[in-house]
């Protein structure tokens, strides 16, 4: 029998793990999409009691036991069931304790051990349920009923949770420790289970539940306030739509102005820099160096700097008044062209009794010749008369130049 149980259990667990995908899909969506899985698999799961069909034409769902297992292990906040049936659990405990005591009295120790382990199982299950319920309530408070979006739904959820809390507290009152201690009498194990363990979890649960209750109340208050605000805003807009020319009375004309509208205007203006404070000098200097404004003084109107109209016209050729020396050189050149004879510069100088420095005259003749264009130069021939310097070789001293036509 025991062996068979073991095998059947392993088989069931294996089925669970083999079809984990399917089960999770059903868990998350609520119903099974039968087209996605083979009918054979579905059939075997139905036979093993994992899936079931609530009504003939309804869709397949997870069995409650499997769902609870998942909810409990995953700490899924969607589970909102609070198992508040503590009364029957307590009655069960009392019965089991009686069985145990009877077995001990008749000295059936093996049987008594079985009863005791059964009893511990029940006690621990009860404590676990209690702590689970409290945890569930706390998780709902902590995310402020995040699984519903509207404030109204949150308020309803909050009210449900409050009724569950009061139900739980009512059930907890059924713990009567004097009765339990009478049942346990002097049995050490029984006392430990029924009194120590249960009392421990009882006191913790009541303590936490009172916190839960307070938090739920304050949350409810907050939700109501939020709802009140939303209504206020919507109502205001609605009112403005219906009577667009609504203007509240100017309450500032009342003898007692409400504090809400009594706002003093700003009287503080930035302080002014004090240049005489030595300790500020560095800061002020920094500020001054950071100033980028260009400070150009406004100058009075200056007519001579003002824009004038510019007349563009042909510039007359600039002619310099040539000096006499140059005119004399030109006349010398002209005489050479007219006569066609060679004539030295100094001879011409003596013929015309020129009153320049003879050296300047010679320079001017040479310059005049070299000032001609190449084409004009080619008509003339200039020969220099002179001798080498007696001391320094390579130097030629010109005493006269002779100009002629080629």
């Amino acid at each position, binding site marked *: 029998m025991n062996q068979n149980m073991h095998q059947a259990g392993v088989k069931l667990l294996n089925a669970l793990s083999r079809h984990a995908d399917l089960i999770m899909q059903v868990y998350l969506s609520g119903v099974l999409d039968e087209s996605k899985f083979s009918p054979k698999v579905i059939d075997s799961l139905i036979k093993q009691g994992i899936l079931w069909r609530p009504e003939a034409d309804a869709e397949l769902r997870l069995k409650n036991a499997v769902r609870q297992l998942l909810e409990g292990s995953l700490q899924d906040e969607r589970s909102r069931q609070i198992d508040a049936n503590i009364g029957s659990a307590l009655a069960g405990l009392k019965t089991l304790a009686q069985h145990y005591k009877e077995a001990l009295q008749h000295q059936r120790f093996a049987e008594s051990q079985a009863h005791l382990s059964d009893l511990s199982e029940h006690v621990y299950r009860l404590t676990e349920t209690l702590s689970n319920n409290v945890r569930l309530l706390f998780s709902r408070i902590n995310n402020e009923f995040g699984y519903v979006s509207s404030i109204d739904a949150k308020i309803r959820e909050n009210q449900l949770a409050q009724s569950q809390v009061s139900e739980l507290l009512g059930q907890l009152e059924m713990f009567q420790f004097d009765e339990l201690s009478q049942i346990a009498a002097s049995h050490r194990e029984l006392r430990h289970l029924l009194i120590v363990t249960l009392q421990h979890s009882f006191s913790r649960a009541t303590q936490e539940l009172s916190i839960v209750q307070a938090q739920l109340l304050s949350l409810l208050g907050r939700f109501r306030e*939020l709802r009140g605000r939303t209504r*206020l805003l919507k109502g205001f807009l*609605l009112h403005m739509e219906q009577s667009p020319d609504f203007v509240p009375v100017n309450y500032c004309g009342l003898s007692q102005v409400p504090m*809400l*509208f009594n706002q*003093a205007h*700003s009287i503080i203006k930035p302080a002014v820099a004090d240049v005489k404070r030595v300790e500020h000098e560095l800061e002020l200097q920094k500020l001054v160096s950071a100033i980028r404004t260009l400070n150009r003084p406004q100058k009075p109107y200056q007519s001579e700097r003002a824009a004038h109209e510019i007349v563009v016209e042909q510039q007359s050729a600039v002619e310099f008044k040539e000096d006499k020396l140059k005119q004399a050189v030109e006349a010398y050149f002209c005489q050479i062209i007219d006569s066609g004879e060679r004539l030295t510069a100094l001879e011409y100088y003596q013929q015309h009794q020129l009153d320049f420095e003879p050296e300047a005259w010679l320079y001017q003749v040479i310059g005049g010749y070299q000032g001609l264009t190449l084409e004009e130069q080619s008509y003339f021939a200039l020969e220099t008369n002179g001798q080498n310097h007696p001391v320094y070789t390579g130097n030629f001293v010109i005493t006269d130049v002779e100009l002629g036509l080629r």
Partner: protein
Amino acid sequence: MMNEQGRILERLLSGDFICQISDEDAWRFLKTGGNADKIEIQLNMLNRTLASAAEGDVFFAAYQSLGDPERKVLSTQFQEISSHLVPLVEWLLLVQQASGTDVPVTQGSPIRLTELQSTIEDTPAFAEQLAKISHYKLFGSTSVSTDGQIKQVFKRLTDLGYMLRPNQDKQIFIATGKVEHLYEVIKFIDETESLSLAEQADNAVQQGSLI
């Protein structure tokens, strides 16, 4: 050097609202027993008094006694506030609807501009609403793009002190206590003029005529 008290005094006198978001240190200072009295004495010298709104969430400087010049200031201020109400309320509702959580904007609500913008861009009704809001005189946007409009609206809100941008590199804004002050103002108008706004909204929801 100026101490904390002086700093807070300066903020109050420049017309700032002090809340937990805009200046947590100052807010805590004012919340601590006795400190508010010290500030009060100094404010009294300038015909100011420390006022708080939204159950002590926001502090600001108010006039201690009201003469004619003070009343004049308050009157213009009031006209300004009442002209800002409609654009601000429309904006608050737009953010609330676009964020999809059905939670109104309150002090400390973070608003991610990029997320909000993409929701608004994807929903033509929101985009239309934003265009309407941004063209109010309060926001004064002339832009035709959603991007330009929403940026202008948030810039103006930050200037007015309703929003705070803690990190200049990020497009995340946080609502300040001034938003709470705004709610108080609407609540006050509602009560004083007995408009019963909440009932109006409820009736409209039942008739299915509102959003």
